């Protein structure tokens, strides 16, 4: 089995580990076409992470797109579940151009829960996000490098929305304020609120939300002091409490910089970080509003892992291109060479038979049979 795993790239091995994890929790794989009608993405462009979509005309004349996002396809192509929760995982390629750069093919593995969500389902999603990070972090089996940290930042975007409502900001000031919270920029947030005529108290509440970063035990009292949020806060607190009781308290950081996408997420947003990777490798949340756009009654939550970001963690540099070179002479018998290669492949050793080593390739050792017959 190890020899098979050695054939995979770091991202593929990481993806395999994650898929195995999700299967073990009863999730079933959702496979999808690489293409979708362009219209799906054009109508929902506001919730897409991709700035540009790769489109082409299909054989029947319809405008098609190479999918830039997985969740939209799942929401469109599944039906409301009757009572239970449909638990799906996927391993897909998406195609995006971001921040003016070229189009790239990106590998994503993730999961989605669609149906009647309750505290357990949300806890399960966050628990699996945490388990994914534990698997991906350096030091985990299969990864390269020293063991380092991983952590999950969590937030409740409905609190951000309510504080913005309280500040009475118009649409453009609201977008600017959200951007300030996402960039943790208190000085700009203060300016935006002042210029929009927000009350001092409402501005102060937004600033305290922006600065509210810490463990659940540190953050929850700060959030409770910001106002009466009812179930929006208490539901969030229950999930955090469940995760703390599962021993994840030290890995959780409440942080509202990730709660900027109010058109997409409600109830819960989270991001996952593993040491030495400079950006979030995992992102997800609850997205009931997206289902409502499609006339669905189901609620939904899920996350995606960007395998491209963790590729370096899982790619140990190979010192050689091939472990053994068998050099043979002009008189060598092809059948004897084949038997010699077979005999040396035991235990997964990589063996290459050549008359001379191709330029640029590195071999661990060389057996030279140019002058003598090849030994099996």
């Amino acid at each position, binding site marked *: 089995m190890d020899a098979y795993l050695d054939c995979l790239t770091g991202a593929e091995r990481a993806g395999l580990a994650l898929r195995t994890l999700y299967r073990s929790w009863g999730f079933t794989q959702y496979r999808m076409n690489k293409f979708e009608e362009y219209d799906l993405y054009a109508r929902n462009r506001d919730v897409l992470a991709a700035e540009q979509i790769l489109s082409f005309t299909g054989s029947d004349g319809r405008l098609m797109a190479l999918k830039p996002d997985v969740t939209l396809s799942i929401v469109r192509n599944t039906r409301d579940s009757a009572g239970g929760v449909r638990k799906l995982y996927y391993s897909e390629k998406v195609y995006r151009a971001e921040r003016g750069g070229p189009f790239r093919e990106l590998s994503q593995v993730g999961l989605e829960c669609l149906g009647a969500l309750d505290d357990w389902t949300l806890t399960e999603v966050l628990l699996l996000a945490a388990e994914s990070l534990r698997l991906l972090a350096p030091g985990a089996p299969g990864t390269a490098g020293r063991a380092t940290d991983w952590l999950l930042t969590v937030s409740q975007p409905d609190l951000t929305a309510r504080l913005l409502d309280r500040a009475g900001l118009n649409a453009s000031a609201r977008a600017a304020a959200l951007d300030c919270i996402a960039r*943790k920029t208190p*000085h700009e947030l203060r300016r935006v609120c002042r210029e929009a005529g927000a009350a001092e108290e409402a501005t102060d509440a937004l600033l305290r939300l922006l600065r509210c970063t*810490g463990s659940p035990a540190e953050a929850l009292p700060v959030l409770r002091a910001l106002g009466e949020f009812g179930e929006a806060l208490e539901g969030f607190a229950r999930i955090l409490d469940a995760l703390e009781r599962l021993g994840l308290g030290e890995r959780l*950081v409440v942080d509202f*910089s990730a709660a900027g996408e109010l058109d997409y997420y409600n109830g819960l947003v989270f991001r996952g*970080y593993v040491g030495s990777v*400079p950006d*979030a490798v995992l992102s997800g949340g609850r997205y009931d509003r997206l289902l409502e756009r499609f006339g669905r009654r189901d609620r939904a939550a899920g996350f995606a892992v960007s395998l491209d970001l963790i590729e370096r963690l899982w790619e140990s540099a190979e010192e050689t291109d091939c472990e053994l070179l068998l050099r043979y002479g002009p008189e060598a018998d092809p059948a004897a060479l084949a038997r010699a290669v077979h005999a040396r492949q035991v235990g997964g050793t990589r063996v290459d038979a050549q008359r001379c080593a191709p330029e640029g390739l590195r071999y661990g050792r060389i057996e030279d049979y140019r002058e003598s017959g090849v030994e099996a």
Partner: protein
Amino acid sequence: MRKDCLTVALPKGRLGEQVYARFAAAGYPCPGLTGDSRRLIFETEDGALRYFWSKPSDVGAYVERGAADLGVAGRDILLEYRPAVYELQDLGLGVCRMAVAARRGFRDDRRRTLRVATKFSRIARDYYASLGRDIDVIHLNGSIELAPILDLSDVIVDIVETGTTLKENELEVVETILPISARLIANKASYAFHKRRIDALVAALAADSEE
């Protein structure tokens, strides 16, 4: 190097020297940084921080990609390159403004596309888009003031500190686009992992600026 050492990208030049002075006064001195050493990276004596000098426009890239945990960049650089970083603090240093300037007496003829020479193409595009003004951006990398004098452009969009260079070349500010100052920026993952130490540094820098 200490395992929890934080790496700070400082912008080369006069602003960088002011910024380093602020860091030193806040309790993070590193005497070697201001000497003639050919070394590229300098560590504080206690190993808490290490600094390196960077081209100002590259600071955002170092921080976004995690090669530096923290950095200091002008608001102009952040708006032009839009690195995905946290902008934790306005250091109040390097205060100037991004402005539109033209030859003295210039009058904008809105029947024509406005020719705009600048190093800050994105800021210029965003600004004129907000006004609904059609422009032709001429991207230059230096000596922007030459453009209107040689009729390469109608106006320039550039940083203005005192306005002396403009005045000496018979140019004047037509419009201020936005105020500029140096900002402390942080890598998102670094902030998540080193929040306490970064917050302490932010507080120390703030306390020093208030003294």
